[in-house]
């Protein structure tokens, strides 16, 4: 590591630092200040994207396991007898709209309109709660139809996949409500907009996972 890297020359002219690869361009935070890191990027945001990349592997495993076992219901009830597509479409729409309210919360925070940001966060949490209620209702109906967790390989893989997603939604709701409480009490240290954006990234990821689940599990015929 050269001295130039450790102690960058204090010059008014733009200096090219070879330790910062090409393409690292998010060098400023929401108030226009450079991040205090060697890359100029927010480490929190970098870590969140790495986490979301790893989550792709988790859900990829669950989805492909379901795809393998979707026809393995034996004599028990299968997808064709259970799915209520209009109902699931409505809950999917609710989750999709929660992504809109989440991104509106982020843009409000970036404009430093904290009051509106809090409002959108609450709406997002409510929409998430509505989706989760729909999922609980759906599970209850399926159970009454005779689809227990261990009824068949199809049932186990279905409940594991959608249950894991539901847990992610529940965690997201807890994060949203905690964020609202912390904003109200002014307990967030540092860039508030970035904190809201991190929760937003998680929430959008939960939405994109459901986009995949909705199509592969519910819409594509077995």
């Amino acid at each position, binding site marked *: 590591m050269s001295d130039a*890297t450790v*102690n*960058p020359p*204090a010059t*008014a002219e*733009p*200096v*090219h*630092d070879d*330790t*910062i690869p090409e*393409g*690292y*361009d*998010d*060098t400023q935070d929401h108030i*226009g200040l*450079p*991040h*205090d*890191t*060697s*890359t*100029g*990027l927010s480490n929190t*945001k*970098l870590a969140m*994207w*790495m986490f979301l*990349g790893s*989550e*792709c*592997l988790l859900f*990829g495993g669950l*989805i*492909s396991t379901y795809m*393998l076992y979707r026809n393995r219901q034996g004599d028990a009830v299968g997808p064709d007898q259970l799915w209520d*597509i*209009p109902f699931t479409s409505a809950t999917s*729409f609710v989750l*999709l709209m929660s*992504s*809109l309210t*989440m*991104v*509106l919360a982020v*843009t409000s925070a970036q404009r430093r309109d904290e009051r509106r940001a809090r409002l959108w966060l609450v709406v997002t949490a409510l929409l998430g709660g509505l989706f989760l209620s729909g999922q609980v209702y759906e599970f209850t109906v399926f159970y009454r139809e005779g689809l227990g967790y261990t009824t068949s390989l199809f049932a186990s893989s279905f409940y594991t996949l959608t249950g894991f997603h539901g847990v992610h939604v529940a965690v997201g709701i807890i994060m949203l409500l905690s964020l609202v409480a912390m904003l109200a009490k002014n307990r967030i240290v540092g860039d508030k907009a970035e904190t809201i954006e991190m929760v*937003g*990234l998680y929430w*959008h*990821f939960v*939405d*994109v996972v459901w*986009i*995949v689940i*909705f*199509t592969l599990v519910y*819409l*594509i*015929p077995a």
Partner: protein
Amino acid sequence: MTMDSDTAITEPVPASVDHSRPDEHDHTITDKNLIFIALFLAVLTALEVAATEVDFVPDALLIPSLLIMMTVKFFVVVLYFMHLKFDSRLFSLMFYIGLVFAVALYGVMLATFHFFTG
């Protein structure tokens, strides 16, 4: 070496260094644009459901059309709602490495179990 690396990580980048694209921070997605994107996603969802329920798509094209609409929805959310289109390429790299690895890994796994060939 470790010492140097640690130093490099904690050392602030001088404010004079500008690694952003010329228009990097000029872009704006207005709330109106975001609502339009959400409407587009809602329409795609409605089309997906209609293709399955109303049977206006030929059977041979049903699964490919559903997969295409799913992929479009996925990337619209990732690129615009998650802002990946306008953020650093390093963030994209972190996410796409996981995504591509997952698709490749589980694609091979499903192929091993003859999922695609029945």
